[in-house]
């Protein structure tokens, strides 16, 4: 079941990727901006009225250790995607490291509640299926703002779907509304500071979110070490032309 979901999601992205027009790698590409903006507005309205208050309340009532345990638990379930993605990118070291993390945290870490692996020096690799597709050459992709789930691209859609589905797939019949709500509250709480900074800083939050999303994805594809020279060239091209 899990494999079929992943395969389906990857196929959707690959099929869409075939229709891509050429353009600069990792650059913002938003040909359906009006639709995305509408989706963003709906999601924001929902976020303001339900999700953000839920996350703020969750953070208020949960002791830090319990909040960490919930976050660790869901992160551990989702690390299967990271492990698989490491191997699919041809980076077996990263794949094995995440597999090791999954094993250590699921056993010594009491089913993932404790992040023992990080304490043992096994840092999370943070891989996903979107990065796999990018490493296979799918470097330019259309922007999508999926209601409630947030920003993504066609390339990163499999990651978004798998990420949202993994807890349900992993714990089967034990997954219920409470678990889902806990996951939702924890996930939203994790990005509270990011969205608060965005709301404080940005003049056009939609554009800000989109730009930040593309940059974060590029950074993730390069494992936190994107080519520095390209960063200079992109920003200083006008100066270089003089």
């Amino acid at each position, binding site marked *: 079941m899990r494999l079929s979901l992943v395969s389906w999601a990857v196929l959707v992205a690959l099929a869409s990727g075939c229709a891509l027009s050429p353009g600069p790698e990792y650059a913002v590409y938003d040909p359906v901006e009006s639709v995305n903006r509408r989706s963003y507005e709906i999601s924001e309205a929902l976020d303001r009225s339900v999700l953000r208050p839920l996350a703020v309340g969750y953070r208020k009532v949960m002791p830090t250790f319990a909040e960490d345990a919930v976050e660790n638990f869901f992160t551990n379930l989702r690390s299967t995607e990271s492990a698989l993605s490491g191997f699919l990118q041809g980076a077996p070291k990263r794949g094995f490291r995440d597999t090791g993390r999954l094993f250590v945290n699921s056993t010594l870490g009491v089913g993932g509640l404790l992040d023992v692996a990080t304490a043992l020096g096994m840092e999370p690799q943070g891989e996903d299926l979107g990065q796999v597709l990018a490493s296979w050459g799918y470097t330019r992709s259309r922007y999508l703002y999926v209601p409630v789930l947030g920003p993504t691209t066609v390339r990163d859609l499999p990651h978004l779907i798998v990420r949202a589905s993994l807890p349900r797939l992993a714990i089967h019949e034990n997954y219920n509304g409470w678990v889902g709500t806990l996951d939702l509250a924890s996930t939203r709480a994790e990005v509270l500071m990011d969205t608060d900074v965005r709301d404080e800083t940005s003049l*056009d939050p939609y554009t*800000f979110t989109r730009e*930040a999303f593309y940059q*974060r994805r590029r950074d993730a594809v390069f494992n936190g070490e994107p080519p*520095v020279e390209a960063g200079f060239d992109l920003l*200083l091209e006008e100066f270089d032309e003089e």
Partner: protein
Amino acid sequence: MFRIVLIVLAFEFAIGSEPERVVSEFHDELLSSMKSDAAFVERYMVLDEAVGKAFDVATITRISLGKSWREQSAEERLGFSALLRELIVATYTSRFSNFNDQSFETIEATEVRDGRWVVKTHLVKKDGGIVRLDYYFRDGLIFNVVADGVSDLSLRRADYASIIGSEGLDGLRRSIRGSIEEYRSSDAP
């Protein structure tokens, strides 16, 4: 002669590169601001001087405004630069207002080419969490800060282009002034 070379080398290693020194001094000012109980306006004054020393606000303005920069008169460009400097300082003053055992670490400084440097640093939080802060230099001054892979200048440029497109440069000025006021008022007693 050999002794002089050794002394020069020792001095170089002790202080690091010039961009490293600029970043280190700027971080010191941020930490002072975080530890200070002074009011917003006083911390603002201190950080205004620090930003003036470390940042190339003219370049930041030019890149932020994109094509619109070319259509501006010299006077308007200076006006925008002053406004952006105010925004940058107000942002730092507001964000770096509480000390919670954070510290800064310089990881490495690399000359990419012809006076263009990147200084990679970490902001280390109390719980050990790290925020990667990369400072991009041009001609000895910072023009871009990349936090965890996200470029402040690219965000600014995209954000401003959108506002200029919908509300024009006057609309952008109004929005920036609004942001500055929000920062000032959020810190009011």
